[in-house]
């Protein structure tokens, strides 16, 4: 091989082996700020995201009504625009779509996706392209311990604060409950909730008189309920998504389970539709509900109304909307459509949402709580904390006596 050819080959090899780097670029002040996202419009998670595409478009319209996001460096407000794809509830599809949005669509920032099962492999794409990503409903704590620098999420509530207000309410009830029993669906999020809140229940002085985990497709709960009846707990704490818990609740009624309260950590309109009156008197958690005033609450109420969305039917909606609110505020705080500056703003900032302030820890996880609701006359009523309550809690729950 001649020397010239050798040098050419060496140069070509270096070019191939040199890691490609995506450098953050300053966005244009004359074009809308582009937020790339995926929504699980089809597949197993699609029942949780009905009307979310419309909601996302309406959110952009509402923000743009006043001109858009205030960007100091542009000396004006810049409108936002969403690029939305359907990830089909499939993680590999989500990965390829976020890659597409980074490489082909050239979005400025990422918001979403949702669900630990789908969103898990997406943040490395954001890391690779150095695009800040504020995911929605991603609550599994271990996801935030991967050393990612460009990843935040706005699950509402977080596992660590999921039932904080509920247990606060229990400590102030008269008669005071003494015992608690946990029934948990075999799922990472529901098991994480039980793992955290069973410890906190014990720390609060509640005696755990039973713990059962059930597979998602279990239909006959006779054995679990028989043990429940024998243990006679004051509180039954159900940690399960809506579908798998339906036969449990129905059979608890049929087999005459009695308790001061039956608490469902993921109570929502879907449970109510499926079990009907059996849900009466149960308590649950709700990140927020229209009527509770807070920053952006009027705008969010408008968005929900225009999108024909009921927050109780789709309890993960606020988590998704919070990801949009946080990103918009981060751009304002950064003062520029600059990925690195927005990243710094996300690390340090306090962000407003209708349910309260969102402050991220060093790993990108927020500390968001939830309000305690009770089903009274077939309607969810916020009953705790008292300052946000729309009505008083009925204690003990009469329909479970």
């Amino acid at each position: 091989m001649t020397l010239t050819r050798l040098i050419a080959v060496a140069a070509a090899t270096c070019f191939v082996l040199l890691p490609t780097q995506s450098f953050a670029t300053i966005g244009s002040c004359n074009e809308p700020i582009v937020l790339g996202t995926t929504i699980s419009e089809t597949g197993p998670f699609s029942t949780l995201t009905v009307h979310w595409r419309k909601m996302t478009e309406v959110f952009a319209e509402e923000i743009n009504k006043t001109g858009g996001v205030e960007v100091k460096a542009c000396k004006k407000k810049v409108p936002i625009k969403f690029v939305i794809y359907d990830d089909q509830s499939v993680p590999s599809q989500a990965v390829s779509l976020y890659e597409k949005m980074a490489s082909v669509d050239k979005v400025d920032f990422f918001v979403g996706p949702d669900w630990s099962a789908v969103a898990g492999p997406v943040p490395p794409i954001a890391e690779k392209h150095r695009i800040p990503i504020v995911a929605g409903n991603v609550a599994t704590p271990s996801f935030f311990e991967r050393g990612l620098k460009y990843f935040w999420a706005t699950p509402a509530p977080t596992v660590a604060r999921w039932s904080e207000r509920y247990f606060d309410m229990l400590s102030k009830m008269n008669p005071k409950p003494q015992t608690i029993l946990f029934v948990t669906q075999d799922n990472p999020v529901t098991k994480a909730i039980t793992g955290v809140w069973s410890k906190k229940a014990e720390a609060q002085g509640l005696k755990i008189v039973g713990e059962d985990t059930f597979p998602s497709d279990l239909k006959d709960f006779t054995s679990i309920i028989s043990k429940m009846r024998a243990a006679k707990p004051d509180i039954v704490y159900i940690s399960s998504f809506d579908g798998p818990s339906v036969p449990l609740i129905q059979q608890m009624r049929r087999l005459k389970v009695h308790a001061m309260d039956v608490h469902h950590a993921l109570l929502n309109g879907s449970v109510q539709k499926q079990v009907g009156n059996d849900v009466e008197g149960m308590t649950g958690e709700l990140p927020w509900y229209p009527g509770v005033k807070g920053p952006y609450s009027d705008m969010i109420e408008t968005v929900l109304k225009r999108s024909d969305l009921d927050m109780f039917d789709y309890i993960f909606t606020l988590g998704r909307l919070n990801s949009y609110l946080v990103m918009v505020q981060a751009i304002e705080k950064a003062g520029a459509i600059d990925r690195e500056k927005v990243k710094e703003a996300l690390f340090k900032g306090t962000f407003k949402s209708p349910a309260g302030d969102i402050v991220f820890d060093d790993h990108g996880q927020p500390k968001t709580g939830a309000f305690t609701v009770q089903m009274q006359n077939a309607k969810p009523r916020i009953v705790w904390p008292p300052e946000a309550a729309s009505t008083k809690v009925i204690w003990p729950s009469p329909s479970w006596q």
Partner: protein
Amino acid sequence: MTVDVIIQVLIGGVLLGGVYALVAFGLSLIYGIVRILNFAHGTLLAVSGVVASLIYASYHLHPVFIALLLAAATFVFGYLFYMALLHPLGRRNHFESTVGTVLVTVGALLMLSDITAVMAGATQRNIQLDFEAFEIGAIVVSSAQVKILLGITGLMLAIHLLLTRTWFGRALRAVTENRVGALICGVNSTRLKALTFAFGSTTVAIAGVLYAISFPVSPYMGFGLTVKAFTIVVVGGVGNLRGALLAGILLGVAESMTSLLWKPEWAPALSMILMLLILVAKPQGFGKKSA
């Protein structure tokens, strides 16, 4: 662990097993006479349960009337399905016929599930009857459970009478015991197979109504039930009503007791192990020894 708890769980297990037995018996007949493994069998139960739930929610018809309506509809569906899609495969060679029936029944499973999900939604539903609960000491039995038990008993009795007192039943038993002999005696094979397929479909549709009273149903839950039904057919013996009932109840009780004594997530696996142990001890299952 008190005796009351064990009795409570046994009651639940027996009821669950009774429904399994109804599902399995239809499949057993279809396999015994038509020689087809119908992979869509459990899906037909799921679809029937969903339709029954919708009819009940919309018109509040009594479940008995709903069961009769669905029985008639699935009888016609089963007959036409066999004649149009499965019977033509019988003219092919053995290998093509077997592969073809698997493809047709699996395809039917997928299509039935998806069509039902599109038309009725994928959310689970059930027939929400008002019920009373009877307490005997610490044991609770709901009126819904009593009605289901009566339904299973009545249906088993009806099937028994059909098999023993009608020409159709005698022809079925004859073909099960001696196919060639039955043919010589003038049993029309094609018509009998179509009627058997239709009858098996009817049985599972009625089981779907009973299932929907006890548990929620959804369009995609059928295949798991088909697998349980296959197990019961093997253990109970092909075409054996008593064997299917015994094996079904054994499976239901095994699942319930495993959930009680160990963990619910182990119930399906341990009950299958139990069935396998029974087959090791008694290879012909609960059926009669073959000649």
